[in-house]
């Protein structure tokens, strides 16, 4: 690991419980700047829960309790002085199922800039929308359909629209919760390509169930099991010479 790597986000002993059920037992994990970090592990291992802690989406779940520290640029995001709205503008999220709003393609992308007042004028807003769609690799496909309803796009296009929507607020980190699990292989390939492009400007954390996907898109991989972090390292290390038996078993498909 070279010394120029910078820690963008950092979880310190993060514990989460939903009501009486403990979902995470103290996770300490770094997310490095301009890298893709993949979170893998069998269903129910807590990887999505951890991801949702990173922009405090767990706040919206009834009875969720988060303890420990999560730092974004060395600042605790669970500190009472932090504004959740501002945090989520800096740490965007893309969900498992494409969830465009029932509005036009344009309005979907313009939504974030509008609520945060990012564009001073109509022209500036158009510019943001176009740039976001270009970055999401969707612009050429939808440039004639900007005023069609977002839900009229195909599944893969919808997911890229959601990515464009997240990019439009210029986040620093993008969290992706199994972004390809509802898509076919071609759409998946496009998204994976996109993730690789996005890495230049953004820090990305992605939850995935596909080992190949983790291997293809990520530079770092964290293996979760039963609410614990089993192992973390460069993707190469994890996939070629894992230290832990459980990681080896999971990657080779022996459990999970």
């Amino acid at each position, binding site marked *: 690991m070279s010394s120029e790597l910078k820690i963008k986000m950092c979880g310190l002993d993060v514990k989460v419980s939903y009501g009486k059920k403990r979902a995470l037992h103290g996770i300490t994990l770094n997310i490095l700047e301009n890298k893709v970090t993949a979170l893998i592990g069998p269903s129910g291992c807590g990887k999505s829960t951890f991801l949702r802690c990173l922009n405090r989406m767990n706040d919206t779940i009834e009875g969720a309790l988060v303890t420990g520290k999560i730092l974004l640029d060395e600042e605790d995001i669970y500190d009472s002085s932090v504004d959740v709205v501002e945090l989520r503008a800096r740490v965007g999220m893309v969900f498992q199922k494409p969830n465009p709003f*029932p509005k036009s393609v344009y309005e979907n992308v313009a939504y974030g800039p509008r609520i945060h007042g990012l564009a001073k004028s109509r022209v500036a807003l158009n510019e943001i929308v176009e740039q976001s769609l270009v970055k999401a690799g969707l612009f050429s496909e939808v440039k004639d359909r900007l005023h069609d309803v977002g839900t009229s796009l195909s599944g893969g296009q919808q997911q890229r629209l959601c990515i464009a929507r997240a990019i439009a607020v210029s986040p620093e980190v993008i969290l992706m919760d199994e972004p390809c699990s509802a898509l076919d292989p071609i759409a998946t390939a496009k998204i994976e390509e996109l993730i690789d492009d996005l890495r230049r400007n953004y820090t990305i954390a992605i939850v995935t169930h596909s080992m190949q996907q983790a291997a293809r898109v990520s530079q770092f991989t964290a293996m979760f099991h039963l609410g614990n972090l089993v192992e973390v390292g460069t993707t190469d290390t994890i996939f070629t010479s894992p230290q832990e038996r459980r990681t080896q078993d999971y990657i080779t498909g022996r459990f999970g």
Partner: protein
Amino acid sequence: MLLLFFMKVCMSVSGIIIIVLVLGFAGFFLSYARACAIVMQGTKMHSRPHYYGLWTFLLIIVPSLFFLFFWNIGSNIYTERRALTHIPYAAAGDIIHQHNLILSTIRNLVNRLPKHSSNMLNHQLNSYASLRDILGQKGVVLDVQGKNYMVPIVIEWVSGLKKLRQTGVIITFVLAIIGFLVGFSETKVKKRARNRVERVILLGLLVSSTLAILTTIAIVSSMLLQTISFFRAVPLSNFFLSTAWNPRFSVMTFDESIGEFGLIPLLVGTLYIAFVAMLFAVPIGLFSAVYTAEYATPRARDVIKPMLEILAGIPTIVYGFFALIVVGPFLRDLSAAIMGGNHAFIMAQSVLTAGLVMGIMLTPFVSSLSDDIITAVPRSLRDGSLGLGATQSETIKRVVLPAALPGIVAALLLTASRAIGETMIVVLAAGVTVNLTLNPFEAMTTITVKIVNQLTGDLEFNSPQTLVAFALGMTLFVLTLLMNVFALYIVRKYQERYE
């Protein structure tokens, strides 16, 4: 003695129904037992045993009870027709109206004879006075106005009906027995009892739904007929275009003019009051729906929702006298106090009073329907918006409500059609004066109030004064129907915007 009593019970209609039911259950268990026995021997039957039982049960009760039902209706009609032919021509003349009057007197007499007392009446009894005496001893008080010729007709009616009923009961019993025998003998390996039972169930469901539709059609068409006969007497322009309402009950003066039946002031009153009611109900209802659906903790929601729904369970007459006794006087006194105590510019009965109270009544409908619609908006849309850093109220305003809008509009239209059809509150709180004004502090009247007015008290049924109620009712029906159709159209059109 006991046997005699038993026979008597058997011969009565309720008795035979019980017997058929008992027979039905017996048939069920016997067929069931037989089917079970066959299965126990190791043979595989087409259907499971209870289907054979059910099939026998249906065979026993359905044909026999259907027969009994139609036979009894038929025999009533038949005896009545026969009695009609016995009414002396001289007594009735050839006026149908008179005929009907006599017939209804006789029908009354028949209905007042105590059950089973027809044996007591023999044919020597031929004067109305003696009939009165005999029944008087039994504690049945008869009218003095009966005529002697009615007595034999009554006696024949009663005894004829009794004979027919008895025949019906016997045939019913025979049908039930036949059903039992057929069902029991059909409890065989290859008989497809399950399919048959399923078909009967399907048929039963079909009949119920058809019945509901037929009832609607019957109500509407009867209303339509009366409306048409109203428009025979009153020109369309008088009803739809006139702004004056003066139905003129003075039929006795043989006045040439039929009165004025202007719909417009009533329609305006109806819509105005409904509008005021919606003005109160929509914001309050919607905001409370947003609160219960989006902000309230589950515990608060569990308390608030049922509380609001209790409001929907209060009878509208209670709202009506709440308006009349509390709200109306309060508003009047309030306005007087504002003006310095001498001039109350709000009347106790006013558009405002009625609208306000109706608004309270409608609030739970708006909130309950909207709450369901808002909660149906997928969580993923909320997450998407929150994930972009939108606040909760931004999410609701820009994502949740727009997504729920078609449903909410439809709910509001349904609520509005309730407001238009609402009666008791406006009868008590809006006033009866026909008044075409835009001042919400004055009394106005509505279509429903006038329907109540025209149909209560002494009235002659074929006069335009009464028939106008049907025309008004028809207008109301068309109005609410259009709103409901429009609501359905909106829901259908925009429903698939999110899945």
